[in-house]
């Protein structure tokens, strides 16, 4: 039994990728859950808005690269991020003004909001295609690896290699910072508390003199930041393809619902839960098993589900939660 090599294989193929992916999902789900908590609808345009913010960031990155601006070992995209966030914030604020506010005033049913968000999704999708096209784009620069496979092998003397890409580490670090900042804002500042109050009890928030339109604007700006950061990190980690951002909608929703719609802590927990399940279920465990039980010939890959079906994992998690605990693990808004 070779526990060390098994552990390294596990870290390399399951833990590190899932942690990075989980961080991306957590940021996405935070955005969904905030919008749900304040505006009370599931935003189907979320993925395409993420794609838009990422596209703007990529264009800015290219611009900076052509000017010779760089962040050394860090990706230039980090520097371009504020531009992407600002553009996305303007776009979603404009969308709110032009689309959602009308239904808010009307107190329309949530499903009408969802429907409107589908229209917005179309428009965002078209805008993204317009600015950057439909093809795959890579925009990561700076150092590729923090730990490279070969260096690790030489250093540890193990047969199994371990790679930690800088984008993966960056994803986790940025997510931690963003989450800390968000929780500080929500729990410590007057504006953040007002947001939570509005999410808790809209009418009472009005009676307390909280300006709903201000809360809504603030929510969109924060959501725009979360969406753009999530999208850029996802793009840095996996490469950017607009259609992937539509597809990531399902795991993001699953994460938000698992955690309990409206609950920020839940969104983060849900993001990691979905990501770890997805990676664990689609990873061929034969290699890890080979180290742990050297004599055993499993006669298969020990892969529960092909990677093509990774969305099925989100779906199953979603179904299980809806069946047994529709308010989610952290008791979000009622059913």
């Amino acid at each position: 039994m070779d526990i060390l090599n098994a552990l390294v294989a596990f870290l390399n193929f399951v833990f590190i990728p899932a942690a990075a992916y989980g961080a991306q999902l957590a940021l996405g789900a935070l955005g969904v859950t905030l919008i749900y908590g304040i505006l009370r609808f599931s935003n189907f345009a979320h993925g395409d808005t993420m794609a838009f913010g990422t596209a703007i960031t990529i264009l800015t990155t290219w611009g900076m690269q052509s000017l010779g601006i760089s962040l050394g070992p860090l990706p230039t995209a980090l520097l371009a991020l504020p531009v992407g966030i600002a553009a996305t914030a303007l776009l979603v604020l404009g969308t709110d003004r032009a689309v959602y506010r009308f239904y808010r005033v009307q107190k329309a049913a949530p499903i009408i909001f969802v429907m409107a968000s589908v229209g917005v999704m179309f428009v965002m999708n078209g805008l993204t295609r317009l600015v950057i096209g439909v093809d795959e784009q890579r925009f990561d620069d700076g150092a590729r690896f923090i730990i490279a496979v070969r260096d690790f092998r030489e250093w540890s003397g193990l047969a199994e290699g371990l790679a930690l890409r800088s984008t993966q580490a960056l994803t986790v670090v940025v997510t931690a910072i963003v989450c800390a900042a968000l929780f500080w804002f929500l729990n410590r500042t007057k504006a953040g508390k007002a947001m939570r109050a509005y999410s808790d009890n809209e009418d009472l928030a009005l009676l307390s003199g909280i300006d709903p339109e201000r809360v809504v604007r603030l929510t969109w700006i924060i959501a725009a930041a979360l969406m753009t950061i999530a999208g850029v990190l996802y793009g840095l980690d996996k490469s950017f393809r607009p259609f992937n951002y539509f597809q990531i909608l399902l795991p993001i929703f699953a994460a938000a619902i698992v955690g309990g719609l409206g609950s920020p802590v839940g969104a983060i927990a849900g993001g990691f839960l979905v990501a770890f399940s997805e990676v664990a279920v689609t990873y061929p465990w034969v290699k890890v098993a080979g180290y742990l039980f050297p004599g055993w010939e499993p006669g298969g890959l020990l892969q529960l589900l092909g990677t093509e079906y990774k969305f099925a994992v989100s779906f199953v998690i979603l179904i299980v939660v809806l069946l047994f605990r529709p308010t989610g693990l952290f008791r979000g808004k009622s059913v």
Partner: protein
Amino acid sequence: MIQSQPQTTQPFLSAQAMRGGYGKADILHGCTLTVDQGQIAVIVGPNGAGKSTAMKAVFGMLPLREGRVTLGGQDITALSPQERVRKGMGFVPQTHNIFPTMTVEENLEMGAYIRDDDVRQTLAQVYDLFPAVAEKRRQAAGELSGGQRQQVAVGRALMTRPQLLMLDEPTAGVSPIVMDELFDRIIEVARTGISILMVEQNARQALEIADIGYVLVQGANRYTDTGEALLADPEVRRTFLGG
């Protein structure tokens, strides 16, 4: 929040001949409510009489078709609820009157949202008034008992240092002991010069502490008198106080 002193000839709050409702049909049919400074006014009446509706109308949460509302002599009929809060009114709705996932302290802070000055003194006053709530200041308000929640709700409304406090059934769902306790607190609040307009289901006890009582039936005043007089009126006793 310093208001011009009310003229002595006029009650502090006066809502005259209010008519209005949620949709086409009126719920209020000429309902009149007044409260003098530092007084306790109590509205009683059967379920569905329009008591809550009248409170909402006074607070500007319902468009009035007819009638007007003045506060300290100033016409506030056209003001929004938020503007009325700034004018010195505080309202505790009948249901959903706290922020359940926020802590008790945060609930109170949100009550003081429109204030830009230091609220610590008011916070201390509220905690003095409701010591049970003070112990739970770091706990989510939704996890408190019904009586404690009502105290938080009243405390939240007091945080703006209102001159008129409106309470819609503050004792709904609390035990008789807590109810007495709450009434004591309300009297205490009134003694500080705050006018109180409250709806009560526990009519007998409420009328005992009332300076003025209104019996509302189908959106209109049926009886209006001092609390004592209403309690003594055999007609009122028989129909509304159960003998």
